């Protein structure tokens, strides 16, 4: 194909895009729907992820209790062991905090009125609560070793971690990501199929013309190019509209939904954080669907 054909082929694509108003509009609408479902789903999953990440940070604390029978020397010994552990290379410990049993009692009484009523009869003389250490750690990766080390210091059964909660949150997150991925694949296929059907009608209406072009020596590129241009235009228009709609949808509908139905107060990811990711993803989907659908639809009519 010669370069000087390019303006002509682009022009043909534009003309066809306008001429097939109804079909083009239908294809654009389908693409927009697919894009919005995908975009919204991604935003929800991402917000869930951000929320879980936040939660995970607050889960990275182990509570360890000292036996009630321990003397204050024992407690000092434990604190020294902990200090040594924290100082070790690769111990996974960021910091630890020693809360005396009096402070624990005070904290608990301050935390709620009901607890205060229950705990009021205790003083520092008969305080049943244990001396407590809060150990903040770096990551969940090496947490099992840390827990074993801490059990060595405090004794088995005196350690409380959030590993189970962490595991289930992690599962939830990967499930959501997986569902998202499949949804994306399915919607992409649907988009391609529907656009293909649309373009097919256009191609079918012009099959005679395509055949004549072939008879007078047109290359397949020459025949296909205008249809590809048409597909690209469909993809571009759908992308632009979807980006605008997605922005509105996120800032209004999705925000309200999450705030109304989530029991917890979630800080939503700002819409602008999804720029340029979502627009680029939409563009990729639009171009892919438009081009692939057009190319496939024309291909079988080329064989004359």
């Amino acid at each position, binding site marked *: 194909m010669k370069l000087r054909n390019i303006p002509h082929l682009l022009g043909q694509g534009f003309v066809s895009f306008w001429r097939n108003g109804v079909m083009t509009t239908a294809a654009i609408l389908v693409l927009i729907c697919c894009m919005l479902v995908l975009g919204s789903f991604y935003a929800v999953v991402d917000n869930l992820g951000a929320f879980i990440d936040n939660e995970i940070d607050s889960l990275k604390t182990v509570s360890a209790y000292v036996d009630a029978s321990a003397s204050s020397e024992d407690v000092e010994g434990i604190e020294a062991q902990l200090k040594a552990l924290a100082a070790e290379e690769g111990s996974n410990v960021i910091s630890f905090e020693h809360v005396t049993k009096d402070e624990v009692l005070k904290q608990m009484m301050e935390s709620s009125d009901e607890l205060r009523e229950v705990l009021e009869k205790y003083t520092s003389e008969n305080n049943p609560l244990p001396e407590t250490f809060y150990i903040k750690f770096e990551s969940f990766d090496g947490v099992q070793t840390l827990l074993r080390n801490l059990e060595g210091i405090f004794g088995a059964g005196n350690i409380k971690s959030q590993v189970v909660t962490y595991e289930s949150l992690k599962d939830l997150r990967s499930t959501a990501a997986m569902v998202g991925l499949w949804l994306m694949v399915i919607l992409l296929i649907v988009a391609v199929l529907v656009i293909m059907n649309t373009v097919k009608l256009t191609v079918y209406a012009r099959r005679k*013309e395509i055949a004549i072009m072939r008879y007078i020596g047109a290359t397949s590129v020459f025949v296909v190019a205008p249809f590809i241009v048409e597909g690209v235009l469909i993809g571009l228009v759908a992308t632009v509209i979807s980006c605008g709609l997605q922005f509105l949808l996120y800032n209004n509908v999705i925000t309200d939904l999450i705030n109304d139905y989530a029991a917890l107060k979630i800080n939503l990811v700002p819409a602008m954080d999804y720029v340029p990711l979502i627009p680029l993803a939409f563009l990729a989907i639009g171009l892919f669907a438009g081009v692939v659908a057009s190319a496939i639809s024309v291909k079988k009519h080329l064989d004359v």
Partner: protein
Amino acid sequence: MVYPNGTAALSGINLKIEDGEFVFIVGKSGAGKTTLTKLLLREEKVTDGKLRVDDFRLEKMPKRKIPHLRRTMGVVFQDFRLFPNKTVYENVAFAMRVIGEKSSVIKQRVPYFLNLVELTDKAGSFPTELSGGEQQRVAFARAIANNPKMVIADEPTGNVDPEMSRDLMDLLIRINKLGKTVIVITHDHYLVEQFKKRTVTLDEGRIVGDRNGGVAVEA
């Protein structure tokens, strides 16, 4: 050559047309004349045997070469094959556009060809607004627009009056004098008699006669 439905449209053909020859192909309706053009254009593929056009070996040529093959020949199809939604001018211009001709050249040459077939005042008409003969002349202009090495005309005089028919034939003769191969398919014996050119007669898919300028040649 056998069509998918089992019709053996051509068989046992052994024909050689030299560069620059002028050949009539005659035969009754259904004799296989159009099928021969379809084979030359690689619209159909030979089911058995060999076929060579220029340097293209059609029986084993890859599909991507088809456009190049077709650009070496200009064909006036029996059913014209004009673009229904393009004007006369656009139909001819488009053929040139397809092979990547410059716009300036197209602008300059289309009017020349339209004048040649006397359709200058129909330039803006669509094929459906034209008579059969006029459509045929558009097809003719399109066939020669790209200066092909070979011109094939399937019943070029079938739809035009004797005078126009005479003019078209003169044009073909002139094109042939320029060194181009011309193949004229017709069942108009009167036409053939007039010109004393090589004439290949087909009947039921076989060559039954090959006369050279009136002299019979064994087939």
